[in-house]
């Protein structure tokens, strides 16, 4: 196993001075990289103005950003010309970031598969129920609840309950349905039933209407 490369041996023989210690990159290269970065910035902005579906838009934006990042790292930070060990450190940190993301997001996205009550959509419905309850406690009975419900359903044109689907939905996965990538995790608010706690869809496919018109009820309790 070699610990020292041939070049290093030569360098030691030369008294420790490494003749090719630094690569002086030609000036036009720097300007070309800067120009490319500007062009890519224009592309990012341009693509965002096209109004692509949300999932596609973020994928394109991240892809372009990654190309820009690669240019900065390879040329401005000289990683392309430096000792490979620095690249190794950099890539190792990216690897751990990937682990961090994959496990955390994987956890959030797949909870509903294992523990249906902990699916994201259930969490969101609970939040909304808590909010309504608070509004009622504040004395603004009915009005606020209806407003919120109306606003909610107006905002999502393509509201679709997961009821009937049966699958405990993992909300965002593979969903490219435009701005409403939240379809299915939107609380099924019914403007008519003013004040009543929203009928929470349980993830087994049927909606469970909770009792009571406006009585305080713990939204955390999910009838199974």
């Amino acid at each position, binding site marked *: *196993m*070699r*610990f*020292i*490369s041939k*070049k*290093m041996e030569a360098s*030691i023989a030369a*008294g*420790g001075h*490494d003749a090719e*210690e*630094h690569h*002086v*990159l030609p000036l036009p290269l*720097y*300007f070309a990289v*800067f120009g490319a*970065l500007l062009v890519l*910035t224009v592309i990012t*902005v341009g693509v*965002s103005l096209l*109004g692509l579906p949300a999932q596609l*838009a*973020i994928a394109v*934006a991240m892809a*372009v*950003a990654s190309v820009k*990042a690669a240019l*900065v*790292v390879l040329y*401005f*930070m000289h990683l392309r010309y430096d*000792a*490979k*060990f*620095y690249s*190794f*450190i*950099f890539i*190792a*940190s990216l690897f751990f*970031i990937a682990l*961090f*993301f994959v496990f*955390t*997001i994987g956890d*959030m*996205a797949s909870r509903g598969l294992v523990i249906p009550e902990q699916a*994201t959509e259930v969490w969101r419905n609970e939040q*909304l129920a808590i*909010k309504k309850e608070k509004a009622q406690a504040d004395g603004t009975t009915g009005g606020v609840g209806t407003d919120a419900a109306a*606003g*909610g359903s107006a*905002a*999502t044109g393509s509201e679709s309950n997961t009821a009937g689907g049966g699958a405990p939905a993992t909300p965002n996965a593979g969903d490219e349905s435009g*701005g*409403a*990538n939240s379809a299915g*995790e939107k609380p099924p608010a019914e403007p008519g039933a003013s004040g009543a706690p929203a009928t929470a869809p349980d993830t087994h496919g049927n909606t469970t209407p909770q009792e009571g018109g406006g009585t305080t009820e713990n939204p955390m309790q999910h009838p199974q």
Partner: protein
Amino acid sequence: MSDLIHDQTPLAQAHNVTSGAADHGGHGAGHSRHLAHHFNSMSQQNASAKLGMWLFLAQELLFFSGLFLMYALGRYFYPETFLAAHELLDWKLGAVNTVVLLFSSLTMALAIRGAQTNNQKSIVTNLVLTIVCACAFLVIKYFEYSHKFHVGLLPGKYFSANLSELGLHHIPADFAPGVFFGVYFVMTGAHGIHVLVGIGLMIWLLVRARRGDFEPQSYAALENTGLYWHLVDLIWIYLFPLLYLVR
């Protein structure tokens, strides 16, 4: 193994300390005045400094990755809010800041090139340009922040903006835009602090550059600050589309 450890890495050079003991005593003629006693050669000294810097940058990336994950989860739980929120930010200001920061990265790289080619004037000029750009970035950020404070686009429970007064009727008010602004202020704030630190470092470098401290064999401080500055740029390259553009 031998692929990973190349000529300039301290690991290889640490080995060199034992094998090249004869060289070690000769701190006389031909050695840079910047060579610290415990290093074998300038290249070893510079490589050690750079290794430390890259380890620090790896840590910085991991630190920021936590914030990016916060963004990802915020988006996951509040998709409408995050998709609508770009309308609450001015993408033009964000784009100007992007160009300013990219240009400052270029001038920083040119300052280092100035040191490599022993062009003292280039080092000073480019450092000044970089500092000016960094300040311009913060000034633009200041205007963005003060506008948000003014209209109440604030994190969490402090969010007090009236969305319909701002002409944004279609943003669902029942999905906590305060969450988005928590993410926005924490991410841009952490980035802004890095810019501030960068300005401080570059002023220090400027003083040293005017003293003629940087030579082709000795510009580790300049190079490492450059690496740091490019990382700050790198973070912004991701922040800009995520916060200002994605819709």
